[in-house]
């Protein structure tokens, strides 16, 4: 069969032969050279359009929008942890910063959406840049726990800075305008005579931003700063020796990843219409870390996959644990037969999913995907 396929290929050099450095780092070569990549792009665009319009209902869109929000944050965290090797549990702090920026400037002050989204990114960038120097001093596990401390400090800040964050009672984003030009995402945009719901519009907004963020990140990674970051991850002492400025790239990585996190936080606040300090704690930090590890460290695609798997998987578990086969395990109240309540059961399944997945495929979904791909590519020599 490979012979037949070969016969159908246009004459010329092997498809993947590159003749210049510029071509090597190109994201999207011509369709003849990288057909499957183009298929992927077209399929994504199609899904982007079709899913909300025809296939998925509002509650499902809400879940997918949340996955998208997590994807943005996960891309940021992957830039920091996967590409630069700085393991950080502090992502939840930057997400919170973005959310409160949107709440305060959008909800309280009525800035327009592009304005407060950009401001959130900027604030994330600056705060990340301030935290970055810690990574210059601390390494490995010590950095992990210090960033964890950052999350708790953040929660303390959100709970006590009443005038801006509303304190422990939280703050509502109901008043925040959500329109870009003529498109009002809150009421639902109107395109070509059709009115769409809030969930549909928001889905498009979020996943549009995911695409933008992924493109930016991919571009960063294949360029000079990206190579510097990966050098730092692999062997930072050597990197320093050959002239990579650790200070610049470590701090830069923190800054950029925090900018992504802040945008994710702002969108999160807009989706929930309400934020409170308790949401930006250890659990959120762990969720992000789980997403990039299960998705695949050091890949952008993996971040998105991880977000879909972890958040989407959790939602799937919650929706399906009511099925009859689980009945003997579930109890709905005191004094009834069964072992777990639904909430406990979901949490156990979630933990089990993480553990089992990492046992089988410790390098994540992206690695799994690469394995499938290479199986097909090297067929019939796939062993």
């Amino acid at each position: 069969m490979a012979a037949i396929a070969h016969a159908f290929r246009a004459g010329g050099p092997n498809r993947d032969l590159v003749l210049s450095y510029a071509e090597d780092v190109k994201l999207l070569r011509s369709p003849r050279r990288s057909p499957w990549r183009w298929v992927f792009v077209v399929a994504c665009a199609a899904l982007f359009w079709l899913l909300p319009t025809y296939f998925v209902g509002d509650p499902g869109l809400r879940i997918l929008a949340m996955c998208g929000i997590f994807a943005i944050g996960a891309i940021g965290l992957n830039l920091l942890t996967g590409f630069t090797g700085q393991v950080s549990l502090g992502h939840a702090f930057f997400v919170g910063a973005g959310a409160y920026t949107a709440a305060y400037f959008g909800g309280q002050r009525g800035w327009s959406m592009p304005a407060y989204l950009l401001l959130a990114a900027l604030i994330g960038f600056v705060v990340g840049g301030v935290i970055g120097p810690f990574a210059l001093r601390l390494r490995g596990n010590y950095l992990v726990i210090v960033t964890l401390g950052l999350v708790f400090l953040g929660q303390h800040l959100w709970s006590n800075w009443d005038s801006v964050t509303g304190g422990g009672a939280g703050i509502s984003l109901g008043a925040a305008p959500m329109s870009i030009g003529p498109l009002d995402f809150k009421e639902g945009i109107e395109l070509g005579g059709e009115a769409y719901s809030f969930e549909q519009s928001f889905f498009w907004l979020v996943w549009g931003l995911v695409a933008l963020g992924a493109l930016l990140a991919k571009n960063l990674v294949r360029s000079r700063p990206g190579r510097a970051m990966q050098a730092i991850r692999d062997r930072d002492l050597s990197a320093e020796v050959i002239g990579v400025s650790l200070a610049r790239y470590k701090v830069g990585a923190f800054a950029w990843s925090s900018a992504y996190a802040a945008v994710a936080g702002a969108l999160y606040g807009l989706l929930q219409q309400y934020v409170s300090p308790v949401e930006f704690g250890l659990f959120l930090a762990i969720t992000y870390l789980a997403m990039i590890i299960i998705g695949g460290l050091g890949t952008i695609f993996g971040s998105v996959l991880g977000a879909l798997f972890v958040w989407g998987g959790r939602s799937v578990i919650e929706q399906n644990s009511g099925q009859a086969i689980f009945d003997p395990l579930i109890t709905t109240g005191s004094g009834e037969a069964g072992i777990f309540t639904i909430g406990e059961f979901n949490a156990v399944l979630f933990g089990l999913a993480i553990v089992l997945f990492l046992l089988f495929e410790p390098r994540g979904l992206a690695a799994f995907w690469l394995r499938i791909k290479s199986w097909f590519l090297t067929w019939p020599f796939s062993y």
Partner: protein
Amino acid sequence: MSPVPLLAAITADDLLQTGFSGVALGCKYALIALGFSIIFKATGVINFAQGAFVLIGAYFTYSFTQTWELNFYLSVVLAMAAGAVLGVAIEALVLRRLVNEAPVTVIMVTIGILFILDNVVTAIWGPDNRNLGDPWGVSTRELLGVTVADRDMWTMASTGLVLAAFYVFFRFSTLGLAMRAAAVDPEAAMAQGIPARRVYRVSWAIAGMVAALAGTTLAAGSGQLSPATGALALVAFPAMILGGLDSPLGAVVGGIIIGLVQQYTALLAPEYFDWVGESFERVSPYLVMIIILLIRPFGLYGTQEVRRV
């Protein structure tokens, strides 16, 4: 209308009492941190599931004491044995297969185990508050002008005992030496005939035992035993870090420092620093940890990492 602000009536007695309670609290953290540090010392893994071990240990003590109605001290010993079994089980079933993976992956797996264990505990024993049934209750005695709870005395004594046991174990016993060797270089250790597998297993077993003891001290007294008890293990992180990840002595010293910092913050902050907001004692351990790490990046007693190009 606001109430009268706190009178500046903080006496020397108060300070002494607070200091003592800080040490007692710190010993609880120290016991938890000891469990972390022994696993890290032997295998290089930060075990996020330690909090669950602590919780399970406490519930085992509860079951043995209240449900099986055994003598309390016997229950504690049995709970420690059960904790050891649990540690070994986790190691054999899960961690064994992840020996060469990226540390971040292993951390994530331990977090997954934490979720599972936390909820299994709640499922088996229920979410209600329970009384541990310890003989110490709320009884106290006077010592140097300070009121000391019996429970706290036992906590401090246990911590000291465990630390001494660790020291003797690591310094003088064959297995302890083997553990130190395996932590430095597993392959070389195996070449010397040291069974690395057994070493890992033993370290997890010891961590489980220490966790059971820690859980018992946490839940003893009038504070009820409930699933929320496990959340205290989070505070042990700064203790472990600022003492140095791989040093048991560091874990204990770190724990005591954190306990003291928390108690003194709770006493003094509302009076003198109320601009920092309420309940600042929840975050002060992390601040102290950050400050100490900036000065000594590997903790107070941690081994300095030697990096080669």
